[in-house]
């Protein structure tokens, strides 16, 4: 049960009952209530997991106890929470969601006053307060009040409506696998309000059962939506995780599209009209991004893997310098949406792209050079990873090197990335090449990592 509880810069996460307990929740929420500046409310929302009922009570109690008013949005997506924070001029917010983890997990995610995840410095301060356990509880006559708001999804949709021409998307036939998560509530409402006509599957939201692992990978989207696309004559298929911050895509043929492709597609769509030309991506995601960026005068900034590095990178640039940021997992943030990982917005951007170009998903993808990616995991045995990486680095002296997260070496047509996972005791090895599989590079890399490990 070594992974049943994780407390780190990205917050608190665990299997409810096994690792994650009421006490963890209450103390972490009290730490956040202490960390935030007093006087302004805190926005709260949760995904439909049943454990969210318990966690919500604990979070509310601790925040009220620290003197913050709490605005509870109920069961909503994480992006809805993030948008509400700025709209309601809150001190910050908490989303109770384990997102793409299995149903027995849950987590607390913390946002600052702009609705963006805490950066590493802020998260470090929060962790220190948590570990010190010296919380700023207010006296009896200075406690917060709870306000329950059930209109947050509509307010969020108002925001989407200002950026996207939703009615123009009506002619597209779109199938969505909601994975029994919060996207179902949003998309149902979009059908009611805007006549979007999205066809929803796995849309029952009871927090108890999920039709499949809430993971946004190409294989799951192909398995779930593949068989439906042709019979329904659908133009595109989408699949969300529980809290709708990530999205996966299926084309009109019923093929699952790699989650890696979401970011390049959106870069292709947004860069031409964007003032900012910077695309922030991690070291492990596809080099197609560089190809696409080059077409529109964009530049790719590679940062370490994980949400935290992307969030930190955001805060080192001015918003208007950035076109978009994201990861190879289908999680993308756009400046139009205040840098919120938002699967629904990503979906709408892809649909808009299809309408504007008059192209199908497969036609859009056909316009890109083909990159072939190979991935492997090797059990971690070495206790001296830095030595391994230095030796490895010596074997490829001709490439361009990046040591900010493991070792990434790139050449004009290919690259590889070797790093130790932050969540599991494994070494991840990834190699990609334009035009053909980097089989030779990949095999020799695996052999060398194994022998050095």
């Amino acid at each position, binding site marked *: 049960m070594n992974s049943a509880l994780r407390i780190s810069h990205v917050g608190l996460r665990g299997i409810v009952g096994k690792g994650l307990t009421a006490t963890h929740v209450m103390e972490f929420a009290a730490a956040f209530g202490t960390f935030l500046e007093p006087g302004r409310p805190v926005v709260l929302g949760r995904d439909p997991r049943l454990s969210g009922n318990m966690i919500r009570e604990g979070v509310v*109690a601790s925040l009220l106890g620290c003197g913050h008013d709490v605005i509870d949005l109920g069961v909503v997506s994480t992006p809805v929470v993030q948008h509400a924070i700025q709209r309601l001029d809150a001190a910050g917010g908490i989303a109770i969601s384990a997102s793409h983890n299995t149903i027995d997990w*849950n987590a607390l995610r913390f946002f600052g006053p702009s609705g963006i995840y805490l950066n590493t410095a802020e998260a470090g301060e929060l962790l220190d307060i948590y570990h010190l356990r010296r919380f700023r509880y207010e006296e*009896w006559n200075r406690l917060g009040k709870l306000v329950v708001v059930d209109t947050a999804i509509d307010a969020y949709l108002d925001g989407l409506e200002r950026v996207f021409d939703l009615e123009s998307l009506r002619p597209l036939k779109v199938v969505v696998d909601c994975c029994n998560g919060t996207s179902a509530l949003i998309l149902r409402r979009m059908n009611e309000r805007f006549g979007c006509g999205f066809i929803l599957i796995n849309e029952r939201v009871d927090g108890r059962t999920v039709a499949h692992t809430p993971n946004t990978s190409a294989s799951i989207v192909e398995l779930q939506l593949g068989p439906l696309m042709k019979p329904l004559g659908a133009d595109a298929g989408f699949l969300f995780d529980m809290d709708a911050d990530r999205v996966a895509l299926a084309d009109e043929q019923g093929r699952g599209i790699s989650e890696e492709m979401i970011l390049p597609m959106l870069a292709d769509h947004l860069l031409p009209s964007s003032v900012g030309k910077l695309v922030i991506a991690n070291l492990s995601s596809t080099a197609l991004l560089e190809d696409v960026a080059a077409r529109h005068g964009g530049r790719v900034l590679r940062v370490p893997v994980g949400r935290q590095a992307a969030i930190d990178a955001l805060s080192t640039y001015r918003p208007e310098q950035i076109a978009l940021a994201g990861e190879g997992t289908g999680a993308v943030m756009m400046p139009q949406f205040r840098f919120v990982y938002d699967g629904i917005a990503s979906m709408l951007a892809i649909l808009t792209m299809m309408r504007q170009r008059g192209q199908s998903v497969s036609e859009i993808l056909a316009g890109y050079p083909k990159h072939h990616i190979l991935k492997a995991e090797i059990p971690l045995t070495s206790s001296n990873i830095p030595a391994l990486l230095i030796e490895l680095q010596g074997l490829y002296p001709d490439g361009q090197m990046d040591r900010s997260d493991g070792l990434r070496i790139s050449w004009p047509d290919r690259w590889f990335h070797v790093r130790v996972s932050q969540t599991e005791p494994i070494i991840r090895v990834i190699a990609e090449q334009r035009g053909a599989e980097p089989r030779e590079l990949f095999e020799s890399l695996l052999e060398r990592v194994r022998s050095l490990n």
Partner: protein
Amino acid sequence: MARQHLLKVGVSGVRGVIGGFLTPALGASYAQAFGTYVGKGRVVIGRDTRTSGEMLTHAVNCGLLAAGCEVIDLGVIPTPTIQIYIAHTRARGGMALTASHNPPEYNALKLFNREGLFFNHYERSELLDLFHQSDFARAGNEEIRAVRQDLTTAPALHLARVLSRVDADAIRRRRFRVALDGVNGAGSELSVRFLQSVLGTQLEAISVDPTKVFPRIAEPRPDTLTELAELVRRSGSDVGFGQDPDGDRLAVCDETGQVLDNDDVLALAVHRALAYTPGDVVVNLTTSAAIDDIAMAHGRKVYRTPVGEANVVEMMQAVGAAIGGEGSSGGIIYPAVHLCRDSYTAMALVLDLMAETGKTVSQLVAELPRYTRLSGKVAFEHGRLGTLMQSLEEGFPDAETNRMDGLKLSWADRWLHVRSSNTEPLLRLAVEARTAEAAQTLFDDAWRQLTS
């Protein structure tokens, strides 16, 4: 400087000052221990009107849900109403989030078993061990449920129970003028409904806004109910009622604006109840000997217990008592309604007695056996308690001694009782005698011994 008990985690539950002492995390842990103890099933909660009630409700919900319990939240509601609801709905147990008559900066958890009774001594110490061991039941996603609110069933149930035990029609026919001070407590709305709509009295009510803070010291006593007394006089009411924040205690004011001694209220209730219900009487050691006289007149016995509602209830259950209570703190326990301290039962019994006899409150009180009671508090240092008690006992060699709770010394016509407070480092001294002079003499003698 006197030590203050800002937080007390003990066999009687958790009580403390909000803001760093009784924290939400502590409330949740205690609730999770409670949920573990009573088992996965329905647990009923409710609260009084303290500002910290909302926060503490969510904390307790968190702990109970984490233990896999199904939480029924009755909202802002009197404590006896919660107890009656627990028993009626066959829940696993319940909690009242209230520091009862304590000041507004305090809050506490009162714990009830599946019969809606205070946890007995054994249950309480088992729960405390469980809390300290932190070996809680931990529900997984599948077992965690949403909190369910039920704001209407319990009040209706409670009032129906009370009404079934008195002659409500007789009370209605009298169209009594009644004054009420609800201390802006959990009973504020229910009391107005009970007195005005249900019993048809002409009600003059103050402090019945549950959204406001307590306007007076929360404990209903003669010195805290001056506003009620004034209201009784001004409105020409037949009777005045003063509640505490969680609606279990009641003080009564007669038609002249005189707030009754709480022992006399209990005496009136015992007198009324014994006429209706066969059985003996249970009161604590500090309660007036008037109760013995009344019980004797009805051919009944009186059992004495240590101070504390839980102790009285435990004994009442054991002997199948008809009625019981704690004199000085304003508590009537009438098992025919429920084995709990209940201000609604007390109001109904008083009104019932007035309706049946046609007498005024002051006339009814005048008929009670007359005793004079005096009380005081002495600060003491830990370690000196035993010596103090012993010297007191030696000072009165002719008295009958009871060491069940502190020291009670009794004679045929008078008694004195000294015990240490559970909440402060104080000794409480109470004396009672047939005459004012005898009471004063006894009080002065005891006071000298305790303070010398």
